[in-house]
Structures are given as structure tokens and as C-alpha cells.
């Protein structure tokens, strides 16, 4: 037996013993399902969610490729593939959703000092600290580099004053990674630093923003004379923009995958445009009865299929630079919006259900989900910003 076969057998056995029944596919549907984001104040409706997170976190398998000295799994790419396959076989739930894993950890690995990596990575991996992202400001959306939240050097600490907006789940997060202005006299891109701030520090407050979907996944975050230790600076002073751009690529890749994953997951959950159309508009010889809806749905399905093949091709080619990240963000989010528009349209008035007992739970959820997708092509760089990036960086078109 070679090492990889041995690893597969060990992994299978470990999962068999350690993955609780309710964390696998085919679990009892009456057990409540948690969205596990971890953190100091995490609450669990199902105690097994916590057990599963602790066990996976202990192994470092929430970030399996990160070296063991930082709390990761220390696995090779081949071993990670095996781990994913074995988890897929038993339908194991992902133990942790985390901006720390998706966005901050890759940046820490690249730019953090040894001390910073040892301090923060294990807590991200174990889900002990929940992170949020402090990028956008009321006056700095697409023009992110114009941000004004300032961090003044007072000797031992930075004194932070200003406001962030669109901070995802800031009201539930323990720490924030933020872009702050440390060089007010420098050109705008050259005066920004990347700073980690504990949300429990005096002077940090948050206020949820209610979205058109009626939900509040985002907050405004205020900094009022907040004292931040200087050791919390990541990378060089005033070199934060490079880190920010790097992190945005991780974010864009994540958001575009989210769109595609939604298409795949949707197919199994009943929230699939074809099954909705067949149910609501009727079916004839296996075809959606209304030919206008059918042709629009077919065109959309073809585009999603072509996009899926493009993601696969990029993977097979070994993954390319930021150019493709912009394209994936653009198409992932635009397709996700279109799919939701089609599902709502095919549902008729039931697709606009908001509340109350007259409507089906699925329909009410669809309405909210549809409205939420409108933010997909704004957050993490608007579709128009992605087109700018492609025009200039990929096609080399001139600036005026």
C-alpha cells in the first residue's frame, strides 16, 4: 500500500469515527441546521455542529494545506484531494464558513510576520475568532483607494478614526482586517496600510444595515479614537494597497465560485429554474410548456454550462492571474442574478412572496435570495470595475 492509499484508509476511518451523523448527508431533517461561522460568541442550535468544528479544527483540516506549525493540516495537494473525496463520499458538511479562511489567511501566509502567523492562523483554523472585512467607506466604493479612515502614529499605537461600511457580519465578528490611511500626504494608493483590529477595543461600534431583501448581513462600523497596537500592522507601512488587491482576488474568486456552487446546490434543493418552470408553467412530453420561458431558460443553461467548462479549463491549465479572476467574478455574479430572475419570473406572483402563512416557505426564501443577488455584482468590485480591469490589464486598452 502506498502512502496515499494509507492516508485514504486512515482518513476514511477517522471520518467514520469523528463526523457526527447530523453532519452527513441523509441526516434527520428535524435536527436544526447551523450556519457555522465560529467565533467568541458562536451559538449552536445543534451541539454536533460544534463537535464537528472542534474535531476538524484540531486536525487543522479546515485549512488542510496550511503547515502544521500554524495549526493547519500540513497536507499535500494530493492528500487534500483524497480528504475532499472521502468527505464527499459520506456527504460531510463543511465544518466552518469563514472570511478568515477565504480572505485573511492567504494574506497572512504571504505577508504576515512569523509572530502574526502563529498568533492568528490557529484561531482562524479552529474557528475561535470570527473575522470581518473593513474595506469600503461611505465615500469609497468602486474608488476604494480614496478611503479616509485614518490611523495616526502616536508612538506605541495607531489611533484610528473613521467609518467603514458594508462590513459583512461586523456585529457578530471578533476582529476586523481593515484598510486605513497612514500616509495622508502620499499619493492615494501609497498611503494605505493593512491593519488588524480587535472589535472589543474601546471606540469600535457597529450598526446593522437592512437590505432590500429585509435581511442585515452587512453593518456600518465606526472607529472613534480606537487604540491599536503597532504589532497589528500587516506588511510594510503604506504598502497596504498591494495586500488589498491580492485579497480582492481571493474575494472575487470566492464570490464567483459562490455563484456556480449556487447553481449546483440549487439543482438538488428544488430551487432549480427547470423544476420551478415545469411545476409552475406545466410540462408537456418532458418539456417546459411555455416556449418563451423554455428558450430563455435554455439560453441561460447553455451560458452557465460554458462558464462551468471555463472554470474547469482554468483549473486544468493550472490557474492564471488576476485577469481570469475578474472574468469569473463578472460572470459568476451576473449568471447568478440571471438565474434568480428566471426563477422568480417562472414562479409568477408566488416568486414575489414576502411574508405570511399564505405563501410557501421556499417562495418566501426565493424572493429574499433574488433580492440578495443584486448585491453580488456590486460587492467585491462592481461588474463595471471588472470590465475596466479586463480592458486595461488584459486587453491593454489605453487610459485617457
Amino acid at each position, binding site marked *: 500500500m502506498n502512502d496515499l492509499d494509507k492516508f485514504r484508509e486512515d482518513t476514511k476511518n477517522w471520518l467514520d469515527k469523528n463526523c457526527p451523523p447530523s453532519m452527513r448527508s441523509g441526516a434527520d431533517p428535524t435536527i436544526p441546521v447551523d450556519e457555522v461561522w465560529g467565533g467568541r460568541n458562536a451559538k449552536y442550535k445543534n451541539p454536533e455542529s460544534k463537535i464537528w468544528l472542534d474535531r476538524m479544527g484540531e486536525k487543522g483540516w479546515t485549512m488542510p494545506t496550511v503547515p502544521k506549525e500554524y495549526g493547519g493540516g500540513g497536507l499535500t495537494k494530493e492528500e487534500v484531494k483524497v480528504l475532499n473525496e472521502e468527505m464527499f463520499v459520506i456527504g460531510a458538511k463543511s465544518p466552518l464558513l469563514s472570511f478568515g479562511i477565504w480572505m485573511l489567511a492567504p494574506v497572512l501566509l504571504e505577508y504576515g510576520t512569523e509572530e502574526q502567523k502563529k498568533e492568528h492562523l490557529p484561531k482562524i483554523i479552529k474557528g475561535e475568532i470570527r473575522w470581518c472585512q473593513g474595506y469600503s467607506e461611505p465615500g469609497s466604493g468602486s474608488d476604494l483607494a480614496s478611503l479616509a479612515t485614518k490611523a495616526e502614529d502616536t508612538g506605541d499605537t495607531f489611533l484610528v478614526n473613521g467609518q467603514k461600511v458594508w462590513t459583512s457580519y461586523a456585529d457578530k465578528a471578533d476582529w476586523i482586517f481593515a484598510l486605513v490611511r497612514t500616509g495622508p500626504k502620499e499619493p492615494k494608493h501609497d498611503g494605505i496600510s493593512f491593519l488588524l483590529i480587535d472589535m472589543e477595543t474601546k471606540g469600535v461600534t457597529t450598526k446593522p444595515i437592512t437590505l432590500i431583501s429585509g435581511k442585515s448581513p452587512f453593518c456600518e462600523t465606526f472607529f472613534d479614537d480606537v487604540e491599536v497596537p503597532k504589532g497589528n500592522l500587516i506588511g510594510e507601512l503604506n504598502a497596504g494597497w498591494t495586500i488589498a488587491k491580492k485579497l480582492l482576488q481571493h474575494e472575487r474568486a470566492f464570490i464567483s465560485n459562490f455563484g456556480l456552487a449556487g447553481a449546483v446546490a440549487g439543482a438538488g434543493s428544488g430551487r432549480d429554474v*427547470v423544476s420551478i418552470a*415545469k411545476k409552475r408553467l406545466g410540462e408537456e412530453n418532458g418539456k417546459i410548456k411555455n416556449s418563451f420561458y423554455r428558450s430563455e431558460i435554455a439560453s441561460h443553461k*447553455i451560458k452557465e454550462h460554458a*462558464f462551468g*467548462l*471555463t472554470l474547469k479549463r482554468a483549473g486544468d491549465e493550472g490557474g492564471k492571474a488576476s485577469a481570469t479572476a475578474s472574468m469569473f467574478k463578472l460572470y459568476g455574479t451576473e449568471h447568478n442574478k440571471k438565474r434568480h430572475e428566471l426563477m422568480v419570473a417562472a414562479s409568477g406572483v408566488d416568486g414575489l412572496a414576502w411574508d405570511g402563512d399564505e405563501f410557501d416557505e421556499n417562495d418566501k426564501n426565493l424572493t429574499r435570495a433574488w433580492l440578495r443577488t443584486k448585491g453580488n455584482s456590486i460587492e467585491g468590485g462592481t461588474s463595471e470595475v471588472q470590465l475596466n480591469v479586463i480592458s486595461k490589464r488584459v*486587453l491593454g*486598452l489605453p487610459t485617457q
Partner: protein
Amino acid sequence: MKLVLTEEEQFLKDTAKSFADERSPITHFRSLRDHNDPLLWDQDLWNEMTKLGWPGILIPEEYGGSDFGITGISVILNECAKTLTPSPLFATGVIGAYSITNFGTEEQKQKYLPKIVNGELTTSLAIDESSHHNPANTEIIAKKEGSNFIVNGKKTFVIDGASADLIILLARTSGNKGDMAGLTLFLVNSDSKGIDKIKLDMADSRNYANINFSEVEIPDSNILGDLETGGETVEDILDIGRIAMASEMLGNAEAAFEMTLDYLKQRKQFGVLIGSFQALQHRAAEMFCEIELTKSSVMGAMKAADEGSNELQRLSSLAKTVAGETLHLVSNEAVQMHGGIGVTDEYDIGFFLKRARVAEQIFGSSKYHTERYANLSGF
């Protein structure tokens, strides 16, 4: 299924690129058109392609070919399409070679394949009978009489039909218009008695013909595949043709886009390069993305064909649809972004528009294949 070219395939692509750039730049096509060339392709150029082994790429080694696969021939067509190179490579090197290799009897293979390999024999597929592609609508009848079939009727829009030596004919031996059952494929010499080829003059200045069959006698031994299985067989042949044509169309789109991008970086108005205008930049970026999606769709379909995937039909329709829509968009935008010179005959970009629309119709439009994709996907 890995969506990357093998070393061999990449080599074929590189060879074809140099060949097209050096031996058949767009001026070559323009000159054939301007001189009202009867073939609308050049015999010397075809001889050169033959020396490179291209007509034999889908043909097994025992008949003199190289058996490099659908991906191999498709990447060559892709590169040749970038300079609008006209040649019998699609109708003969893809359709003829694939049909006879996969469905011919041993006798037919020995008779025709070596001649395809050495460039002596060109072929054409006679399938459509009206302005819209639809094999099930075949009405032309082949009636059994003794050991022969007698064919009467008319085929339209036969690619390379004005010059091909051998016609692969789809005819009805039973059933009615609309049925895929009751169809049979025949190999017919184009100089047989009763065949009348009427050369078509079409927008893209390529070789097409309508063909009249009047009491044409075809011996039993010239059936390709089995009697009454022509419906299935021809769908298989067409799917390979659609994939190769999608690859050609991708090449058309890539070239038209590149010419347009160059123009955006050279043309000045209001004292600045027009490529600095955001109204044009975003449209260019969208074209770039659509071309990337087309590359992936064509790659997926080519690989599925070579690996015998059960997704072949769906991927073939996907590739033809996506390539058709992308080329449609790019050819229109290319003309628009070139402004006034874009609509002049002197400038090459208009050739791509004219070629685009004809290619979009070949073996089914994007609309035809969107519907087929939906049928095959179960909705």
C-alpha cells in the same frame, strides 16, 4: 476529461498558424473572390495541406492517415479560419474522412480513404433540402429497383458541392418527412448520370451547390453504414462536423476581435485613441469574455468527441450555439467599431461578417442547437 491540448495537438495548431500566416493570409482569399475562381479554393494550397498530412488526420494509419483525432483537425481549422483560408479540409478532411472511416465497409475504406489522404478525392455531404437545417425533414427518395436505388429530388446548400468528387447523400428509403427513421446514407460519384450541380453564389464567397438528382442509379454496395440507420449515423457525423465548424468559427471570432482591438489602439478621434473610451472598452471586455467561454465550450466538445463521451451530443450543440452567438456578436461589433472603413469592401473586416452568418447556418443555427440542447437535457 482534461480541457487542455496535448503536445501533439499544440504542435498541429502551431504548424497550422505558421501555414495560414505565411501561405494563406487574407489576401489569398480576397484574390480568389476577386477572380471569380470557379473552385473558390486553390488547388496548389490544397496540395500543400495534403503534404502536411491534414486530410488524413482522422484516418487510421493502415489507410495512410495519422489518426490524430477530432481535436487535432479542429485546431487546424481554427488557425486556418483566422485568415479565412478556403479549402476542402472541412468537407473532405472532417466529414468525408470521419464518415467513411467510421461507417464505411472495408471495401469502401480501401477505395476512398487513401485517395482522401493523398488529396486526390474531395467529398461533400448533401443533407439539407430547404433554407433551414433539419435532417428529419429529408424528402428526397431513394427507391429500390433490383440491386440499385433510384434517386430523384434536390439537395440544397451542399458545402463544396460545386466541385466535390464524391457526394455523401442522405435520402429517404421509407417513412415520411419529419421522421429520423427510414433514412439511409449513400456514397455517390458526383459525375454519375442524372446529377446536375448548380454552383451557388453566396455572401461568404465559398464553394456551395444545389444538386439535382434525376433518375440517378446507385448500387446497393454504395450504402454507407446500414440501410435505414442513416438518421443515427448522420447525427453522429453531423455532431463531429458541428464541433469542427465551431472551432473554425472560434478562429473567425478570435481574428476579428484581434483586428478590432488593434484598430482601437491605433485610431484617433477627438485627439485621443478611441480605445480609451469606456463605451468601447466595456464592449471589448465582454467580447473577450465571450471568446474565453467559446474556447472552453469548443475544447469540451472536441475532447468529448475524442474520448467517446456520452455527453458528446449535448456538448456539440453547446459548442455550435456558443460559437454561433459569440461570432455573431463579435462580427457585428467588429464592423461597428471600425466605423466607416468597416463597411467598405476594401477593408477585410467585412469578410468576417459575411463568413460568420453563413457559418452560423451550417449544420444548424444557434437557435436550432439551443432547442436540441434543451431536448437532450430533459426540459
